[in-house]
């Protein structure tokens, strides 16, 4: 610690250069914090206690292939199944195709399988009794300023009605509230419409469903139940693949994009650039201090202590910038989530992200400082003092 003032003073010897390098490091770690939140958000999707007890059954071929409704009754009879429901992706947008709405056509028992979604009995009854009724998540309702009693138009990106129009009308009869905001934020953005109305209205793929959702009696029996459900359609033209909700969500997201790979690639490129940038700063900083380092060695600082001081300087540079960067990310993430109107529900920077971030700071700091530190350690005093 007694060398800290010396390390600090050396670091800020060229204030402008150090501040500019710090800004780059802050930007890199701010990006790290944000992208890690995105990655965590995707990784956490479907991870909940209730989710662990649910299985999703979709077509083995692709998630856009539908399954016959007749499977519903058969799945309900599989040993270990508590209850089963189904859903169709509606693909609605409100007013503008960019205003995508997570809309699903579901039967009356759908919410029985989702105890983490709260809705009043009266609203649920109204949903069942109103052919064009819709239940909307509270975040979604807030986003478009919808309230119970409103009639809202949605344009399906996929399904037309029998006249060929993709414009559908719905009557909002209730508001959905997720009881666990951390894992269930998605439900607050959902738009549920009656499957019967949907199936009667669209001429396409009638009598089929997008996927089934099953709640098992015993979580430990989930694998066996999944195999039994898939056995129902084995060797048919609609073979199924049943997975846990978490695996299904991950698989579905992977079909959209491999978020982990994308985030990893971006961060890899950012940190590689940072490595070159801060490495250059450290090389310059040490090169222009050649005679000062020679003086330190002259008055008795050993090669190792000089090595340690240069390494400490580069680690300090990275840690300073990194902590500010991730600190900023913790402030920015809630603002991004709020600003997205509920479309994004990013988790705040958690302990594991902080730990990973600090490890990266130290690692990059050591890598960046190693070459200049070694050259400082090996510096020949006589040559350096003679400015050779």
């Amino acid at each position, binding site marked *: 610690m*007694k*060398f800290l*003032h*010396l390390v600090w*003073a*050396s670091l*800020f*010897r060229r204030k402008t250069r150090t501040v500019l390098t710090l800004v780059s490091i802050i930007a890199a770690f701010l990006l790290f914090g944000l992208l890690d939140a995105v990655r965590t958000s995707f990784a956490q999707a479907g991870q909940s206690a209730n989710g662990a007890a649910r299985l999703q059954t979709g077509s083995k071929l692709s998630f856009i292939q539908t399954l016959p409704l007749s499977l519903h009754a058969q799945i309900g009879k599989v040993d270990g199944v508590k209850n089963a429901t189904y859903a169709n992706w509606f693909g609605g947008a409100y007013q503008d195709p960019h205003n995508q709405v997570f809309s699903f056509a579901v039967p009356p028992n759908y919410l029985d399988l989702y105890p983490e979604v709260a809705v009043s009995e009266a609203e649920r009854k109204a949903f069942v009794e109103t052919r064009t009724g819709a239940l909307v998540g509270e975040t979604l309702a807030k986003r478009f300023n919808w309230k119970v009693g409103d009639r809202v138009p949605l344009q399906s990106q996929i399904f037309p009605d029998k006249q060929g129009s993709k414009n559908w009308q719905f009557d909002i009869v209730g508001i959905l509230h997720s009881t666990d905001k951390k894992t269930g934020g998605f439900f607050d953005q959902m738009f549920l419409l009656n499957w019967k109305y949907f199936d009667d209205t669209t001429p396409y793929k009638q009598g089929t469903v997008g996927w089934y959702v099953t709640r098992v009696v015993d979580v430990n029996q989930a694998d066996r139940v999944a195999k039994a459900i898939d056995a129902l359609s084995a060797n048919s033209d609609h073979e199924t693949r049943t997975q846990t909700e978490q695996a299904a969500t991950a698989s579905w997201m992977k079909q959209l994009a491999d978020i982990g790979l994308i985030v990893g690639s971006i961060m890899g490129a950012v940190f590689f650039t940072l490595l070159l940038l801060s490495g250059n700063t450290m090389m310059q900083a040490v090169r222009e201090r050649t*005679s*000062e380092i*020679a*003086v*330190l*060695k*002259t*008055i*008795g*600082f*050993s*090669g*190792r202590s000089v090595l340690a001081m240069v390494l400490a300087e580069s680690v300090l540079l990275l840690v300073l910038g990194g902590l500010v960067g991730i600190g900023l990310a913790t402030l920015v993430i809630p603002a991004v989530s709020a600003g997205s109107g509920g479309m994004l529900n990013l988790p705040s920077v958690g302990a594991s992200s902080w730990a990973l971030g600090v490890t990266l700071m130290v690692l990059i700091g050591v890598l960046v400082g190693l070459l200049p530190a070694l050259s400082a350690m090996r510096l020949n*005093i*006589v040559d350096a*003092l*003679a400015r050779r």
Partner: protein
Amino acid sequence: MANLIEIRDLSKVYERGRQKVEVLHHVDLAVEQGDFLALMGPSGSGKTTLLNLIGGLDLPSGGSISVGGERIDRLKPGALAKWRAAKVGFVFQFYNLMPMLSAQRNVELPLLLTKLSASDRKKRASIALQLVGLADRASHKPAELSGGQQQRVSIARAIVSDPALLVCDEPTGDLDRQSAEDVLGLLRALNRDHGKTIVMVTHDPKAAEYANHTLHLDKGTLVEQTVAA
């Protein structure tokens, strides 16, 4: 008076590419404890090389150097660094202060290698600055000081750990006449009043007059000795 420095058959050869340049040839020298010795000679005569070897900054190619009875030519780099920290103070022509540190912090630098507490380090540095007449400039950075003041800070840094030996390489080479005389007067006071043994390289005959003896080097050999009147 016993010898502080004993040099026997000292040689130094530098390799510049494929060429070998013998800078010092079989030099023998003894410096008494408490002496003030000036080394003079033309450029390339080997005086700075000899000073570097006495100060333990470089190792000889042949011969031996004992300082205070210790064969420093046999010490390994780590031990030599510790020896320098404890036994030698260095004064350079261009002061070589850390530009980002205050005078006080510059003087404290050698004490960072000791086990002294922060308050003791501060106290000692203050005394050293007082000794060189710069107590009121403790918080100033080198750029805020004149050349003579900077050199006095560098002398305070050299004496702060109370070494027996001071090696000075052209300490007045970058100073005006008045500042040079102040610095030389200070060195003489350190020699006479505090018993410091001083070896000083200089080109300036007037500076050499402050020393007790002057040795002349030419082409790596001691050629003449002058004793102060």
